């Protein structure tokens, strides 16, 4: 989508730019083109790996700071799974943990000025949500076979209501990946756009620019909270979907 306005559109920060190669005019990006988004994904991968591997390097009985953080993240997600799914959820710990850390680090890295937030792109969040949706659906079929379709019939509903309720349940089920992906994408998009818009006023207002500046500082704190919160929401919804798949109702 072409940017019509000035050079400092609030949406400019979401543009995907090729970093290693320059594109000819009219040339579209290839599959493996290394972009600012790719860079942040690789940075996320490297940082999480460093966080987990280097933090646990010593494997000390009494943990240091980094080891405490790594253990804390482990126990946080482990607690989340055991609370929502129970002991059967242990098998799905790696995928939930990976999703949580990937989204959390992606969101937090995006808070660094002039960096890029790959979770602010609907295609990325939708792909992540699809992993969950498809995985959970396969899990439910493997676990329950054709009995899985009873999931779309609310227990205790009168048969007369089925023609109404079943389509609602099916739509509700199919909209899961959409709500899951749009929630994260919209939060990141709105937060970063708002920050950019308010930051734009700082220069325009001169001395009074201190007011939007203070607001930007406060909103940055809020955004860091949201970065964490959205990763948590994504992880807990994944756990709830896994629980649904395992127990249907």
């Amino acid at each position, binding site marked *: *989508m072409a940017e019509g306005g000035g050079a400092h559109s609030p*949406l400019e920060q*979401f*543009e*995907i730019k090729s970093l290693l190669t320059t594109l000819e005019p009219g040339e*579209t*990006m*290839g*599959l*493996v*083109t*290394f*972009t600012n*988004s*790719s860079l942040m*994904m*690789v940075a*996320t*991968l490297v940082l*999480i*790996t460093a966080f*987990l*591997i280097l933090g*646990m390097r010593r*494997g*000390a*009985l009494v*943990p240091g700071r980094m*080891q405490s953080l*790594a*253990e804390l993240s*482990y*126990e946080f997600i482990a607690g989340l799974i055991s609370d929502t799914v129970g002991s059967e959820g242990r098998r799905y*710990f*790696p*995928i939930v*943990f*990976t999703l949580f*850390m*990937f989204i959390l680090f992606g969101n937090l890295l995006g808070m660094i000025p002039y960096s890029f937030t*790959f979770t*602010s*792109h*609907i*295609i*990325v969040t939708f*792909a*992540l949500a699809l*992993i969950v949706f498809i995985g959970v659906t396969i899990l439910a079929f493997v676990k329950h076979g054709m009995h899985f379709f009873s999931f779309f019939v609310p227990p205790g509903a009168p048969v007369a209501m089925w023609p109404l309720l079943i389509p609602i349940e099916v739509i509700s089920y199919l909209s899961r990946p959409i709500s899951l992906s749009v929630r994260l*994408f919209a939060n990141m*998009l709105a937060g970063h756009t708002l920050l950019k818009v308010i930051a734009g006023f700082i220069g325009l207002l001169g001395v009074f620019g201190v007011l939007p500046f203070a607001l930007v500082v406060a909103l940055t704190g809020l955004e860091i909270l949201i970065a964490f919160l959205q990763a948590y929401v994504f992880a807990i919804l994944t756990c709830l979907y896994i629980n649904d798949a395992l127990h249907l109702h």
Partner: protein
Amino acid sequence: MPQLDPTVWPTQLFWLAVTFIALYLIVWRVALPRIADVLEARQRKLDDDLKKATALKEEAEQILADYEKLRADAQASAHEVLKTANDALKAEAEQQTAALAAKLAAQTEEAEARIAAAKASALSSLEGTVSEVVMAATEKLIGVKAGAQEVDRAVSDVMGSQAKGGGG
């Protein structure tokens, strides 16, 4: 909005797949087992230490109980020994007291007998002396030589009545 430009989707999906799968494999195969190992080792160490502490505590309690028992036994036996010794001493003391009392009584009796004998001999010798004095006094005063038998009878009457009267 750059998000809605489909030409930038393939590269994002490709790099997302690469990085996410790589991260998943690292997390699944390396990172989580390592954290789990460390946590498990810590839990095991804690359990071991707790178990060891419990065992040591039990041992200490056992030792304390043994010690208390020993102490009570020792106290009881000491008490016993003390009591025996006390009883023996008391019996001996009583025996000695009785022997002493008997000895004293014998001595008293003997002394009394000796005193009585002495008194009797003193009295009899006194009677003779008094008779001689009375005879001498009578001769001197009235110039009559009293018969020895009469004087003796008179003196022994007086002496006997005085002795009977309580030495007045």
